[in-house]
């Protein structure tokens, strides 16, 4: 669940007389997560250290001058840029600067210049982009991997337009926003960039929150200035209480969460003085907080902190949006963390970010020794993904036992830390893979297939790997999977026809037919068994299965055939509480494997014997089953006869009434 924490005051405000304006022109990020630049609507710019709630320095323009847009910090040059009295060579709407990009100047008539280019030729002509009676309502600046964008929205006679200005090379796209109910204009906009798409989020006074998605690459620009219709989807329909929203704002926090200020809390009447975090995937309210004083419909968010001017203060409210899962969205997860616990988790997370392996291991031990571990489920997911992302970034860092312990809590699932399985594969930590396959209920078919592929192509002579694997299997939990240890020696060999041990034994007794010899070594078998037991859906698995090479398919099919034969020989091989796949799981895999690779198998000469064997065996089984069916039919009749209690014409019975 997302959470809003106790807020604190950053600074006091001097709102305008009529109180319609908060007096804050803008809040901009500064060098790091703890510094912001606040521009007030009169004459001053102040730099604050947020955690200290303290101004570090302040500038004021001369008497008679005013700041017309919020000052921004350029991290490249470590300079601040502010515009006073709105003028450079034409009226400036705003200057934007974000990390990784150059400062951009947006003029009131829609032209866009890089600040450097403008300063080098201050008198250059500035073109008019907007039509008559069209004016900018909101703007921002986004830097993607390849491009910098200036994005702004305009209004012209009740119609709203979105402009997407690419810089270097410069192209401009214009989109027309779909009309909401007549007379309603968007109250706020927020833009974010994710997965090569720019997402625009906007809130209407009727509580509707829409999202429009524009591709980063964009359409071919139409020079005619034609506005494309901008498709939108309704993300949320917020409760608005009585009347329409007036001063409200919505900000996208991540892909699933938005913060909204100036709306009623659904369970607290019609007062509109709330800050709420909504999950847009599940349409659920995640957190809410009443905000004292007048709300001006302004909201900024930097580094998990929301900045809200209200009444006569500018408040900072830290928030947290953990990866949402259905369970947490539905409130199935208990939220019993106290502040203290949160602090512990947070400190653990910081440890994970920086500390050496040993310390991380110690922290994890400490954390897992707690009794209320199940209650910490969301936090554990967060910790695990912190650990995974650090491991991904730092090739020298890996904490196999900590991760294994975390997986072992069964509090994790694939969607909470989606990179874990692939990371384990990459680091050849097959024990962790096995644990994940065993405990994660939601491994996607693609990952399952990746595991399968990796397991099949394991080199059989990886002795050291096997030893570590065995050592781990006999680790603290004594977890031993697959077939029983007594049979371990028997299946030690890998590859077709059996290895050395096998051959020695064979000298003394007659050799069993090849299909009764396990085609893979014990450890590979253990891992493959784990794959066989994961949940999957045929149609999703099939395309990924096609990635297997024909040799892999043949080996896997041999192994499946071996398992199948073994099942048909002993009725109940799953004994001793070991994890081995059920007969129906094996048969399902045979089917889906044949489905995916039938033509390949038919064309592969090595597979011919295998397929013929399989066919004849299946045929005999079908015959057997049909005979069983007959027997079952007869016995069922018998059962029916006995079940129908023959009362006869007369009986004397005892009944009891209570």
């Amino acid at each position, binding site marked *: 669940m997302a959470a809003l924490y106790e807020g604190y005051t950053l600074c006091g405000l001097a709102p305008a007389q009529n109180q319609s304006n908060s007096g804050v022109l803008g809040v901009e990020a500064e060098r790091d997560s703890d510094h912001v630049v606040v521009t007030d609507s009169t004459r001053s710019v102040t730099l604050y250290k947020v955690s200290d709630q303290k101004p570090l320095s302040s500038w004021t323009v001369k008497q008679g001058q005013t700041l017309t847009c919020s000052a921004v910090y350029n991290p490249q040059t470590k300079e601040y840029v502010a515009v006073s009295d709105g003028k450079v060579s034409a009226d400036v709407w705003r200057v934007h600067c974000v990390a990784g990009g150059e400062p951009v100047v947006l003029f009131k008539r829609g032209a866009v210049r890089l600040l450097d280019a403008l300063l080098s030729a201050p008198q250059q002509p500035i073109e008019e982009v907007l039509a008559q009676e069209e004016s900018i309502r909101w703007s921002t600046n986004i830097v993607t991997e390849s491009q910098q964008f200036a994005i702004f929205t305009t209004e012209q006679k009740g119609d709203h337009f979105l402009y997407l200005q690419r810089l270097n090379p410069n192209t401009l796209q214009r989109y027309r926003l779909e009309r909401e109910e007549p007379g309603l204009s968007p109250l706020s906009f927020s833009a974010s960039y994710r997965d090569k798409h720019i997402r625009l989020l906007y809130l209407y006074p009727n509580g509707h929150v829409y999202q429009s998605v524009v591709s980063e690459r964009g359409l071919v620009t139409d020079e005619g200035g034609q506005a494309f219709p901008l498709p939108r989807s309704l993300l949320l329909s917020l409760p608005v209480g009585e009347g329409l929203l007036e001063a409200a704002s919505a900000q996208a926090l991540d892909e699933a969460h938005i913060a909204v200020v100036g709306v009623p809390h659904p369970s607290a009447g019609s007062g509109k003085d709330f800050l709420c975090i909504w999950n847009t995937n599940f349409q659920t309210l995640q957190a809410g907080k009443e905000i004292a004083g007048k709300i001006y419909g302004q909201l900024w968010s930097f580094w998990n902190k929301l900045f809200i001017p209200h009444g006569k203060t500018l408040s900072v409210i830290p928030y947290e949006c953990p990866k949402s899962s259905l369970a947490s969205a539905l409130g199935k997860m208990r939220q019993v963390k106290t502040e203290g616990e949160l602090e512990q988790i947070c400190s653990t997370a910081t440890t994970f970010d920086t500390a050496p392996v040993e310390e991380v291991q110690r922290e994890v031990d400490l954390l897992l020794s707690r009794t209320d571990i199940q209650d910490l489920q969301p936090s554990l997911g967060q910790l695990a993904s912190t650990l995974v992302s650090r491991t991904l970034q730092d090739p020298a860092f890996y904490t196999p036992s900590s991760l294994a312990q975390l997986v072992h809590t069964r509090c994790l699932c694939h969607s909470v830390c989606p990179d874990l399985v692939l990371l384990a594969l990459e680091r050849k930590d097959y024990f962790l893979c096995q644990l994940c396959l065993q405990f994660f209920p939601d491994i996607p078919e693609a990952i399952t297939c990746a595991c399968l592929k990796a397991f099949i192509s394991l080199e059989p002579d990886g002795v050291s790997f096997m030893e570590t694997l065995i050592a781990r299997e006999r680790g603290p939990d004594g977890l031993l999977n697959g077939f029983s240890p007594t049979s371990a020696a028997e299946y030690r060999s890998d590859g077709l026809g059996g290895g050395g041990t096998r051959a020695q034994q064979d000298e003394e007794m007659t050799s069993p037919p090849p299909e009764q010899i396990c085609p893979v070594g014990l450890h590979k078998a253990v891992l493959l068994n784990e794959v066989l037991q994961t949940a999957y859906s045929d149609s999703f698995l099939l395309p990924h299965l096609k990635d297997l090479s024909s040799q892999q398919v043949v080996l896997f099919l041999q192994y499946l055939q071996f398992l199948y034969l073994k099942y048909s020989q002993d009725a109940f091989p799953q004994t001793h509480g070991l994890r081995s796949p059920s007969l129906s799981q094996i048969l399902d895999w045979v089917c889906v494997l044949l489905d995916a690779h039938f033509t390949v198998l038919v064309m592969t000469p090595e597979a011919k014997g295998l397929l013929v064997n399989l066919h004849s065996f299946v045929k005999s089984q079908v015959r057997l089953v049909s005979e069983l069916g007959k027997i079952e039919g007869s016995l069922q009749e018998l059962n029916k006869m006995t079940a129908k209690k023959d*009362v*006869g*014409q*007369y*009986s*004397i*019975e*005892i*009944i*009891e*009434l*209570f």
Partner: protein
Amino acid sequence: MGEFKVHRVRFFDYMPAAIRAMAFNRRTERLALARADGALEIFNFADNYFQEKVIPGQDGRAVEALCWVGRRLFSAGLNGEITEYDLENLRPRYTVEAYGGPIWTISAVAYSLSGCVPCQVGCEDGTVKMFEVLEDRIQFQRNLDRQKGRIISLCWHPSASLIAAGMMDMIRIFDVETGKGVGASKSKEVVVWSIAFLSDHTIISGDSAGKVQIWDGLTGTLARTHLVTKWDVLALSDESSLVAGTSEGTVVQFQFLSSTLDGQNKDWVRTRTFKNHSHDVRALVHTETAVVSGGMDTQLVVRPLLDKVEKNTQESAMRKMAFPHRSLVCCAKKAGLLLFQFPDHLELWRLGESDGHGNPGDSLPVKRKPEKLIQLKRKGEDHICCSALSPCGGWLAYSTVTSFRLYRLQNNTISITKVSKLPKDLRSAHQLCFSTDSSRLFASSINSSVVVVALNQPECKYLHTLKPKSGEQQPTTASVSLSVRLQLHCTVPVYGSCPTAIAIHPTSSNLVVVHADQQIFEYSLVQKEYTEWSRRLQKQGLHSLWLERDTPITHVTFNPKHPAHIILHDMFMFCVIDQSLPLPEAKTRLFNQMILRSLPEPMRILHRHAFKMCKTFQNLMCVRLLEDHSLVVVERPLLDIMSQLPAPVRQKRFAT
């Protein structure tokens, strides 16, 4: 509560007769039903489909058609006679010979301006005969044009000026005034079993070729044919929707619907098919809300049309009526004898015996098998309408509509002696009842009177006749209570629904009455008011599941050991009401015996309620408590009845 030893009896070979004809009186909401043995039954559709009246059959009386004229009921049959029934005294009132050979059909106009209602019969000899319905009789008026071939079906045009007749191979329309045929439509080699004549002169026929055909009655042309079955369409019933019964046991509904949205171009469209019968559907009625069907499989089926009734209510539930709503079994409590009543004979059985004890659920070994002591054939052609056995097992009485017989039984020697001298007031009875000490016999007789006679060795003596005040309804169905004083003691307040079972408590003298709407009342004959328990029950209301049962309580009795226990049963359960326990509330589980069984003893007290219902025994004809505290349960499994039916004429088989 305790254990019961149960004599589970399945040797009562009760066999209902096939349903041959039905007629529905829309005004009184009564359904008249004729069975193959000539018996007539009246069902009150307004009162939970309760079977109010039964007029016993008669040898040789084969009712082919029924017809209501106002509140009067007429039948016609293959014996060539028209009969009107006395629905008060439950016997034929008079019979008129039509002199036209077997009569296939009878039809009366729904209304008449002239006051005298014409009534018509269609005869074997090809004549349509018009009768005038007078106040106390019917009088032959005239013949319409005589046709070749028998008249199978008749239907009046709503204007009462035309009549359509279904014949062999032909439909003919007659002008009632002139008696002349005004039109005819011909088909080949079919029997027009059923016909409907609508106000727009559409004629709809069902025939032996399995077709439902729609004709234009003005031009005599065929408008449309629906092939419904390979076999006969036997019954039609009309309204804006029409149903046809087939010899396969299906009922097919047709509706006059528009195929377009604007409501133009209406057409008769086949809409629904019901399969509720295993045999031929011989009789059909289409009420406002339901299709009522009956046939060779003897069950009366009321199938509500779901577009006409509120869904998921009691009203929308289908009802199958398989058993009579009265008891055909009499039990001698002291002697352990059972008397089974058949239309043409009585059977007297002695129950078996077992020794030893068993645990609940056990069957005990039967030491002595049950034994049929006597099979008594009735005399005369009238079927038995009621019978009774005295509690001591020493007296046996039965009555038909014309005669009454009383027998003295000697159980030990199994001898039966007819009591020859009977009081002249005791000529016939609808209900018979012996007093608890077997010293008195009460017989409900004509004109709602009850005749009381004293039974002394070796003769019987007339004591008294209880007569109702004028205007009182006659007690046709309720079994007469166990002890009746010889003068009017009090009058129980009238309730809107018909009582289905009544009984007087032997010690407290409380009268328990159960009604067709499943309500239960207890009336104190001492205080002459409803008892405290009854008031409590009415105030709280009966449990909804109790009210939703669809068969009436047919018997009420008491447990001498536990005066607070009332024992009653319907077709699917028997129930012991323990008046000392709390009544079940709306949310309580009514059928809680299984739960109580699974609970430990101390917990049971918390979950107990007054209604202890047992569904172990099904298709109950009788549940009685013997003096030795064992129960007698007479079951008649419907499957056994089915297996004794003749093979269906036509049965649809898979892939044929």
